[in-house]
């Protein structure tokens, strides 16, 4: 496969040095779950703040200076541009450091990197979103994008799950999508609690129960690897072909631009050839390395 042409993606990078981040300021922090926070941020440079655009599914490298960089998908929608958002689960060095920062703190951001969800391909189709845990973050960007252009798409199903009700992210969005009559929103948890009235069960299982039709449909999947591993076969049983399944992957990354070497799946680099892949593209390697 020829290496993806990325020339159009370089517009908002530092022009002399692609590794030099832009300074951004945290404007708001939302506690999504005990371990996940959403950060709203904006560039310090006014011109960049005005001009910056991206496509749903793209990501950025975020610096906590002195600690390092980490990769986050932009979780806000390009259709809602007054600030950018990403959601962070506290798991490692950078995410913990980020957790110690407050509103007004400066971070570094370089991006947008990576490809994006194929909007042209999705138009006019039925969309099935399948997400688990913080995996909703990258899909959220697309979902809002789709909802903001609702007439371009057909039926929308969203199956979203988390371990427990407290682990559900973006509850305010779940409510909004639940209230939207043009969207079939299904929320599930692995283990409910006394107040939980929704579904209980693993995402792939619930997905098969919801049983969206594969006809003129595309499934967009993101979640922990274990969920993804079981979701693809479930979709296959529902009649989806590998071309009809799209996912966005997460790997350890350093450079974000296909050079540092570690995020490959076969010959594809998640950072430059992805993070959005069709299952057809990666199925040779996915069983083994993802």
């Amino acid at each position, binding site marked *: 496969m020829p290496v993806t042409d990325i020339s159009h993606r370089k517009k908002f990078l530092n022009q002399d040095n692609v*590794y030099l981040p832009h300074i951004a300021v945290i404007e708001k922090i939302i506690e999504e779950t005990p371990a996940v926070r959403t950060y709203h941020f904006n560039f310090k440079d006014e011109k960049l703040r005005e001009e910056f655009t991206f496509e749903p599914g793209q990501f950025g490298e975020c610096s906590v200076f002195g600690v390092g*960089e980490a990769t986050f998908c932009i979780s806000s929608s390009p259709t809602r541009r007054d600030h950018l958002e990403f959601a962070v689960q506290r798991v490692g060095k950078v995410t913990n450091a980020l957790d110690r920062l407050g509103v007004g703190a*400066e971070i570094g951001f370089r991006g947008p990197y990576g490809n994006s969800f194929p909007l042209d391909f999705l138009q006019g189709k039925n969309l099935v979103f399948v997400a688990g845990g913080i995996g909703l973050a990258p899909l959220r960007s697309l979902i809002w994008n789709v909802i903001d252009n609702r007439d371009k798409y057909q039926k929308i199903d969203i199956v979203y799950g988390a371990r427990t009700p407290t682990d559900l992210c973006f509850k305010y969005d779940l409510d909004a999508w639940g209230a939207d009559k043009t969207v079939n929103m299904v929320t599930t948890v692995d283990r409910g609690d006394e107040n939980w009235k929704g579904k209980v069960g693993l995402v792939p299982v619930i997905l098969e129960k919801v049983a969206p039709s594969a006809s003129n449909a595309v499934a967009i999947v993101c979640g922990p690897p274990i969920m993804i591993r079981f979701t693809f076969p479930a979709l296959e049983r529902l009649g989806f072909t590998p071309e009809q399944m799209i996912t966005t992957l997460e790997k350890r990354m350093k450079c974000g631009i296909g050079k540092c070497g570690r995020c490959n799946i076969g010959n594809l680099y998640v950072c430059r050839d992805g993070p959005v892949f069709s299952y057809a593209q990666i199925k040779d390697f996915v069983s083994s390395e993802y």
Partner: protein
Amino acid sequence: MAKKKINKKELANLLKQWSQQFAIFVPSREGDVTKMARWNGEDISFLDWYRNTTISPRDNFQPQVEEMFSFQKDDNSYHLELPATDEQKRVIFAIRPCDARALAIVDKTFKDGYEDPYYLRRRNNTVLVGLSCTNPRESCFCTSLGVSPGESDDVDLMLTEIDDHFLIEEVTRAGSDLVAQVSDLEEATEADEAKAKEVKEASHSKVTRSIDTENIQEKLLSCFEDKEYWEEVAAKCISCGICTLLCPTCYCFDINDEVFRKQGTRFRSCDSCAFSIYTSMPMENPREEKWRRVRQKLCHKYEFYPMNFNVIACTGCGRCIRLCPVNWDITQTLKGLPAKSTA
């Protein structure tokens, strides 16, 4: 074009003339390790011991550690600053054809899509003077990868040892400019050129180790899932970084921050796919198991890189074989790839 030659005794003179304009790098011993380092202006005794350097010349373009930028916080706001760059042009003298090819291979990654400013600045700033290899090692297998120890298109100027002289061949414009700077070169005769041809052929035939690169991508793809095979070949690997860190075509790197006395620096340093932490994420690691890492190293070089750039990311320099503490031999592993029907 008439070729030139120079007596070996005049070599120091030649380098001195170049050093008016260029920083000259020659094979050097630092402690007990050899690498391309700044010439001291006198000594050309490397001609006596030099076969190839332990640290590959990639290090002169992608150093083991380099500062990407520094950052400082004043008044609650960060200021980033790129490191000062040395703009002096450089000559790397006596690079071997295998290592020169390796740079051409690594170029593809660093030029691809997003240009890597650190590597390319050095690359564009450097003239390569090749020295034909007359004494390949037991571990060398360059001829299997389209490299001939005596010849190179990947340098700017090529020198070939002919008795007490070096024949000088201009490969690029930059090479010709180098030649034009030197006043007292001798004209090479036809006999010299014939002799050089002989030398090149002789060294070519001295390379005895080989691999079979035919259909190698398909072969590797067909056994990608053969866990048993990979486990077997990985068994004695100790997951150190020697083969990758010293490899002239392994360019993977890591990025780290440090704050020292309020001065912050972002470093990048060479990294290795042999290390388990290389791909480790807090929640999971796709290449936790050793055999997956060994497979990645091999497949990256012989399967993935050719898929992306149409060239195998190996030049057969043999460092990985010679320096491996357990004699893990990539040529044997490739020979032993399970033959599997494509059906």
